[in-house]
């Protein structure tokens, strides 16, 4: 199970980083979404991986799932969801205004064209 989760985090991160480096808003946003999935899984795993164990103190139970990472992941999911919505809106605005969806600074010729 550890190998599976670890490789999932690794592949998601690698794919996310690749997409982020495309420097066009759509792939970059996709890449950031993949990265947030990766980090959410990673946060889950930071409380050790257990199957079917109780999260709350109970009599006669020896193995517990750590509830803190689950709370952390919930917070992280909500925040990343909101942030993704914001960045989609802003980049749509920028794209519709300039008819250009590249993320890096405009080149000299672009600027002269706009001026």
């Amino acid at each position, binding site marked *: 199970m550890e190998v599976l989760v670890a490789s999932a985090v690794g592949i998601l991160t690698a794919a996310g980083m690749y997409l982020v480096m495309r420097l066009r808003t759509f792939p*970059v*946003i996709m890449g950031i979404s993949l990265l947030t999935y990766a*980090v959410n899984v990673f946060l889950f795993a930071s409380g050790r991986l257990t199957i079917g164990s109780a999260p709350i103190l109970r009599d006669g139970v020896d193995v517990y799932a750590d509830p803190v990472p689950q709370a*952390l992941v919930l917070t992280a999911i909500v925040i990343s969801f909101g*942030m993704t919505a*914001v*960045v989609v809106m*802003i980049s749509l605005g920028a794209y519709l205004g300039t008819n250009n969806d590249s993320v890096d600074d405009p080149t000299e010729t672009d600027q002269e064209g706009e001026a």
Partner: protein
Amino acid sequence: MTHWIIAPVVLPAMLAPFIVLAARYHIGIQRVFSLAGVVALIAIAASLFVTVSDGTILLYQLGDWAAPFGIVLVGDRLSVLMVLLTAVLALFVLLYAIGSGWDDRGWHFHALFQFQLMGIMGAFLTGDLFNLFVFFEVMLIASYGLMIHAGGNDRLRAGVQYVLYNLLASTLFLFALGSLYAETGTLNMADLAVRADMIGADATVGIRVAAVLLLLVFAVKAALVPLHFWLPSSYAEAPGPVAALFAIMTKVGAYAMIRVYTLIFPPDLETTAGLYDVWLLPAALLTVALGMIGVLAAKKLDRLVAFAVIGSMGMVMVAISLMTPEGIAAALYYIVHSTLAGAALFLIVDLVKSNRASLNLTALPPVAGAALTSALFFAAAIAMTGLPPLSGFLGKLLILDAARDHTMNVTIWAVILCSSLIAIVGFSRAGSVVFWKAKGVTMDEQAEPTSSANPLAYVAVGGLLALLVAHSVLGGYAQSFMTATAAQLFEPEPYISIVLETEGKLSTPDASEDH
């Protein structure tokens, strides 16, 4: 337990929705409430400042749950100093925004401004790393709105860069928190300090990775080279008052770095040895050099100021990376100075912009009110480049003095002094092109400049410069307070014991018998 310490977070958090819901269409009411809120924040911060200045550490347990299970807010000298600085800066920025009419050029300026203050205050006061992440996000999401306030294609485009870069930094922050939690099982700063010390020498791989990841995150916030790429465009394209408020945002990174690397990973901790002198110091020196060369190379006035901010963050980072009480004290003195000076410069750039066709550093016809604006620019540039008599000079002197005993002292002195000279040349070139050469250009009769600047805008800039003068004149008092702050940071035992040993709800065993 005093409840006042949470007031700097709660007050803007209540005001912002009130402004959105009740005063949406009344800019006058928004202005009154926003100003009243900031003035109240200053009063609260000042009274907290008086309380903690004798070394008291204030603790607030949210919901009365004891640390490390509950979230705590902690106010020591450092936190409250930063809170006071933010509140004072916010007042002048708000006055400028009202005076120049920026707040009326788009929706919800005041609400976003209050949310931004809430995030910054929370980041300074929290005693929990995950809570720090949450307040970072509150601060960032408000800043996204402020950054693209009043719209425009260039601004939206810079906004996209800014948001994406910060999203990546947030992801990195979560990775850092995950690895810290996996290694220690806690995210409370005081508890982390205890546990990081207990990790044996043979099992330090995870904690080292976590320490480096955290350092990277804070370096992104503080715009340390080579992680500074988000800063120039976004600060240059943001509305003037917003860029001025952002002057405190880079300092949040510096604050977090000081807090985490004095409390959790102190300099004498074996695990993280070499992090400061091998990695942080060269990066900081590079930041100083790059920032100041950027000042000389900039083609537009707003970029020039953005690079000056990068350079001054580099100065702060040089002082922090010395990791001595003298270094931290000098860094704190310089943080206050560079926040005020950077904000004043951004506001002055906005004054120039409102009267001038463009901010390009080419000679254009003189503008209305140029005499006063150029005098303000002159004073702020003196402060920023570190010429006597203003506080930039004292700050640099303190940093150079703190670096005296360091093994790399020759390099540090050379980089700081040479780059200061470059910055002076850069600022004088910009000032003379914008304000002096204008006299030589014949005025185009049709383009009669109309001054839109309101006296209130000049009052705001003048107020910031007056604070800089006060920071220099009362430099002795400021310096002794910073020294006391640094001493408190390097003696973390009282902080740790207050956070971990104060009892909360259900802390005594017999109350929680029937679980």
